[in-house]
């Protein structure tokens, strides 16, 4: 009794305390909130960026209740960025699409059943195709869904529904690297493994703000114990630049001249690897001659850098034993991105900094499955990284899929910007958008809206009915999200990882895989996909499609093996007859390579299957390409490629005196924020409204105070933003994060001529108080 009264007066524990009680979670998790103690745990790969972190999903009765990063996974070592930590939260948002929505006579989207949705889908697209030809219906896919779904979509759309044009939002992030690698190496093959971050002596980051864009890759740099030189080449003083030992704040888009100038210094001083160049490359002589004109004076003028800084970088490349070059969107999203990426590749090639630990010319990808899209979306390249124009490639795909080769188009079709232009010109009347949000993300947004509004029939398949694009659709198909479906993703370092269904999709939302199957049935081409009845079955088909290609992963038994191995990087081939596996590709069936160049077996593992294999025979967890110096061109050599730099596509003028830089604002925001803005915690981690970084000197001239509102205006549009005064941006430049919807009202629709990737990073604007 007295204790009761005492505790009434001073209550040390009780129901409120118990709400936050922790207890050992088991499964190697450590303490977890008691209310979320799991009865089972499974792993899945994160569905945001290309880092490809593994997450332990805590389950109660099969349903995910929480997650923690996987401690043992070779990618993230038990860490995740805020997006990953909050990945489950955004599944429960109120604006999830739960039923198909069809625009009715009065112009409103109203719920319909799946049968009506599918009938409408088929009849409207068929009618357009009948009236305007097969080319009049196109699709826009994504880098955010599993490879199996991409393969099914690409195959269904192009071989089943007769579409000719289809592309993905990967055009916005990776196309430049794809083309650069294809031209230089003979195949789209990022050569590195993440261990290279830890094993490098000099890490040169170009247009890459890892701390914000890929925090878990920055983690790997932070764990480099070789006291590396960290060089950041970026007009802005980013978080990553802050952590660098050398920051080169060059003039926007002057990077091409910089790398040519660095090459000249290296060549002039004999700081190059002649043996490597001789044995493994083509075109060096011409390149060496070409770069002669990029003298220090010229480069210093173009880049507006101190000559000493340029020389210091060249010396660093020379002096350090293992130099790795890394680039992201600062290079890719440029009107001369391909040549810039290749100028970086050239530096790695001429110094022999490739194929060794801690080296490489390494493109860091954007989306979680951009790499899967590059191989299997069946858009720019034919399934398995093949070429639509190559008859042998078409034949082998037809054979593997058991279809008539005539169903395979003989060219790749339009790229994303060409599709947009096709709509503008009335060539394309119907569009199927899957898991992407062009109405927010496409360059020159007002024009994009105008283009989308011209469509006779726009279908948007998305997990939310509220995206800027879904709101413009005639038909919205409700999709299950990451975490509600299965398949595999391929990360930046070519690692295949498994995603799993750990949560129930709301209402009648279906996985994209199921939606594609229903469309195939409704379209009348269901028979073609008889074998494609589950993601696992499609994985088997993809293994077949990969066989003999550089990306060969036919040695992977199944999803379980991927999970057990902590993800498996391609290549990992199975050699027929022997039952053995090769950490390389198996054979060379389709003439992509000459005989001398294959297979590239770094080590062999023999045995009938993974379950009975000696663990030491499993693939090594971190593997890089080109250890033998042989590339995928027919002659086995890499190529030096170059071209004159061009001036800024929209130089600052008297009327628009500032260069607008765009990029990621925080690690808690993802792209158009359809997902990340659904987490209350993530919302607390970034500014709610748009802001613009302005140099204090410019601000003073314009009379702009800190936190004041300003209109940022380009020839195409305007946005209101708060002024954030910082020396991080140079005078004459401003920065706006891309996540805010209005940012792309400003950007200018200019593209790289080879990759067709939009040049988001620099256009001219003015500031009006």
């Amino acid at each position: 009794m007295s204790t009761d009264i005492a505790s009434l007066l001073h209550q040390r524990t009780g129901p409120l305390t118990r709400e936050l009680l922790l207890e050992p979670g088991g499964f190697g998790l450590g303490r977890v909130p008691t209310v979320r103690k799991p009865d089972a745990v499974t792993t899945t790969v994160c569905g945001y960026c290309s880092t490809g972190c593994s997450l332990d999903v805590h389950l109660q009765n099969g349903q995910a209740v929480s997650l923690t990063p996987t401690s043992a996974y070779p990618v993230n070592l038990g860490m995740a960025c805020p997006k990953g930590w909050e990945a489950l939260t955004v599944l429960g948002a109120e604006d999830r699409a739960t039923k198909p929505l069809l625009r009715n006579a009065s112009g409103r989207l109203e719920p319909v059943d799946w049968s009506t949705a599918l009938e409408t889908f088929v009849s409207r697209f068929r009618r357009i195709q009948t009236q305007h030809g097969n080319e009049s219906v196109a699709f826009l896919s994504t880098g955010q869904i599993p490879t199996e779904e991409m393969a099914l979509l690409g195959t269904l759309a192009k071989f089943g529904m007769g579409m000719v044009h289809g592309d993905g939002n990967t055009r916005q992030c990776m196309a430049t690297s794809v083309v650069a690698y294809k031209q230089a190496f003979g195949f789209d093959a990022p050569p590195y493994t993440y261990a290279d971050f830890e094993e490098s002596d000099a890490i040169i980051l170009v247009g890459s703000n890892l701390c914000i864009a890929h925090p878990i890759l920055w983690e790997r740099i932070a764990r480099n114990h070789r006291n590396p030189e960290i060089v950041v080449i970026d007009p802005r003083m980013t978080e990553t630049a802050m952590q660098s030992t050398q920051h080169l704040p060059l003039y926007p888009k002057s990077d091409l001249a910089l790398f040519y100038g660095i090459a000249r210094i290296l060549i002039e001083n004999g700081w190059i690897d002649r043996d490597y160049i001789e044995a493994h490359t083509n075109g060096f002589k011409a390149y060496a001659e070409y770069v002669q004109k990029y003298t220090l004076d010229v480069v210093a003028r173009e880049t507006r850098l101190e000559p000493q800084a340029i020389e210091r970088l060249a010396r660093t490349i020379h002096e350090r034993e293992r130099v790795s070059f890394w680039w992201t969107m600062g290079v890719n999203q440029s009107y001369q991105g391909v040549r810039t990426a290749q100028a970086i590749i050239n530096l790695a090639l001429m110094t022999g900094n490739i194929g060794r630990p801690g080296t490489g010319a390494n493109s860091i990808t954007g989306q979680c499955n951009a790499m899967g899209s590059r191989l299997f979306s069946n858009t720019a390249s034919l399934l398995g990284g093949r070429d639509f124009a190559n008859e042998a490639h078409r034949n082998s795909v037809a054979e593997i899929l058991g279809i008539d080769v005539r169903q395979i188009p003989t060219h790749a079709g339009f790229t994303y910007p060409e599709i947009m232009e096709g709509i503008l010109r009335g060539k394309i009347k119907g569009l199927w958008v899957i898991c992407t949000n062009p109405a927010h993300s496409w360059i020159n947004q007002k024009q994009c809206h105008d283009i989308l509004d011209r469509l006779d029939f726009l279908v948007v398949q998305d997990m939310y009915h509220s995206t800027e694009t879904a709101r413009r659709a005639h038909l919205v198909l409700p999709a299950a999200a990451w975490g509600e479906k299965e398949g595999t993703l391929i990360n930046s370092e070519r690692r295949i990882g498994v995603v799993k269904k750990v949560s129930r999709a709301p209402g009648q939302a279906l996985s994209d895989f199921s939606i594609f199957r229903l469309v195939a049935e409704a379209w009348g081409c269901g028979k073609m996909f008889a074998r494609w009845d589950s993601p696992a079955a499609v994985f088997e088909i993809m293994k077949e499609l990969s066989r003999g290609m550089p990306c060969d992963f036919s040695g992977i038994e199944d999803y379980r093996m991927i999970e057990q191995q902590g993800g498996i990087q391609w290549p990992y081939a199975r050699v027929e007859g022997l039952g053995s596996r090769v950490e390389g590709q198996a054979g060379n069936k389709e003439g992509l390579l000459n005989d001398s160049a294959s297979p590239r077996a770094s080590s062999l593992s023999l045995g009938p299957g993974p379950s009975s294999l000696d663990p030491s025979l499993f693939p090594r967890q971190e593997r890089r390409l080109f250890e033998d110096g042989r590339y995928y061109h027919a002659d086995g050599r890499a190529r030096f490629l170059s071209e004159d730099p061009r001036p800024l596509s929209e130089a600052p003028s008297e009327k628009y005196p500032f260069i607008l830089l765009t990029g990621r604002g925080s690690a808690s925001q993802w792209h158009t924020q359809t997902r990340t803005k659904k987490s209350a915690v993530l919302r607390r981690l970034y500014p709610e409204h748009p802001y613009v970084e302005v140099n204090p000197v410019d601000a003073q001239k314009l009379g702009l105070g800190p936190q004041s509102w300003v209109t940022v205006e380009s020839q195409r549009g305007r946005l209101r933003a708060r002024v954030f005064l910082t020396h991080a941006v140079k005078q004459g430049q401003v920065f706006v994060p891309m996540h805010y919807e209005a940012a792309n009202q400003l950007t200018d629709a200019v593209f790289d001529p080879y990759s067709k990737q939009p040049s988001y990073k620099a256009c001219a604007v003015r500031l009006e108080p």
Partner: protein
Amino acid sequence: MTTSLLERLLADQQDLSAVERFAQAHENGSIPAQAKHYQRLLPTSLPAVGQQYAFEVDLDRCSGCKACVTACHSLNGLDDTETWRDVGLLIGGTATKPVMQHVTTACHHCLEPACMTACPVNAYEKNPLTGIVKHLDDQCFGCQYCVLACPYDVPKYHSGKGIVRKCDMCSDRLSAGEAPACVQSCPNEAIAIRIVDIRQVIEDSEAAVFLPAAPEPQITHPTTTYKTNRVFPRNLLPADYHSVNPQQPHWPLIVMLVLTQLSVGAFIVGGILDLFLEGPSQSAFRPVQTIGALAFGLLALGASVFHLGRPQYAFRAVLGLRHSWLSREIVSFGGFAAAACLFAAVALKSDCSTQLLRVLGGAVALLGVAGVFCSIMIYVFTQREFWSFGQTATKFVLTSAVLGIAATWITLWLIGTDSNSGSSRELMDRAGRDLARALIAAAAMKLAFEVIFLRHLLGHRHAPLKRSALLMRGALSNQMLARLTCGALGGVVMPLMLLQPLDGADADVRVRQGAIVGLLFLACLAGELLERYIFFAAVAAPRMPGALRT
């Protein structure tokens, strides 16, 4: 065909058994797999005497990813919007050497936790061994005084639960050898738990070695160590330095403060007037004034209960009497109310002894003054400049004066209506004149005091008082304007009108006088409520450097 496939796929979509097809890679391991990554970030022994656990943040390793915030949220099972850790940003430097420094921050587990001292119900405990400052959720009654007292904005009020919650350094995890959520989730190993010497913490606090642009460490002696090899430029400022946002106004507190001060003021003004009265005027005046003052006092105490997240535990407030000004305020006003009730009961008896009433009245006044003093000290304790003793005491005391006089005017008018005796009218004329002059003096002084505060707008530094002034001119300008209008109307214009002789028939004069007195009171009351609203909303709360806000 399609329909059956559709049904099958819809059913499949809801089937979560697929996961079971995979091996559950994890064994039923009780040793956390993550331990190998965080082991070196934890102390290897318990703190000795004169030591305690503390966060250590390596600023050179904090890259601003904010994973710690989400991990803390998730691993501690916090509610949707709840976070116990924040990441701020310091910016500065020059054109050639710009600086951008992210700063992760949570509870500093201070040596002198202001939250603990402030808490009226002893819901905070500082563990004598580990030094961890832990909040007892079930003991908390949701007064939020700790939220105001902590210079680092650490305790977070959870309105749904009616309590505050905060970081406890994951003490459960630490005691089991596991790392706190933030420590185990930082990709760059920027957060560690270390053992610090209490003497060293005090020395560092004295020398203000804590973190640039953070609140001064002398107040609470925060134990977190921010280490760096960089030399920070002198112009380092928080990214949110220039963002000025009104704070929560706390309406129940506004009403409570203003009405308690009214009540105390009315008792005192009434008591003074009482001294000069005699006979029928006294017997007419005393009960009305007393009941009026008492009613407002009780109303105030009623309003204060609405401020508590869990008012059913209000009685626990006695626990903190030895250290908490809030406890003292509650007890003082409780005593004031009780004494005032007694006083009223005695005063209403026709044959009460004047001697007894004088003693009782003195006690009421004394307890009331003590209560108001405690009210003042509650805010002074927070060390916010806008709530300094000078600012707070001037406002609270003058509120007592203004509203005490205004309320007395009502009494005078009421008894004038009740009895048509000449003495009442004479009382109104004589005392009324003095009261009107006193009111004008008090109100004018108060208004001048508040207007003069706007001089801080001229300050070059974006100091706390300038922030308050900026808010009064900006986001709170409407409230400010209304406050000054009401104050001038009720405190100056209306009393001036009362000083003018009113011509006409008696009854007519009474009505007009009533209208003036009523308006005077209401305007004064509204003005004081608005002043108190601004008192809360315009305060610049100290906090750790914040991130950019838009």
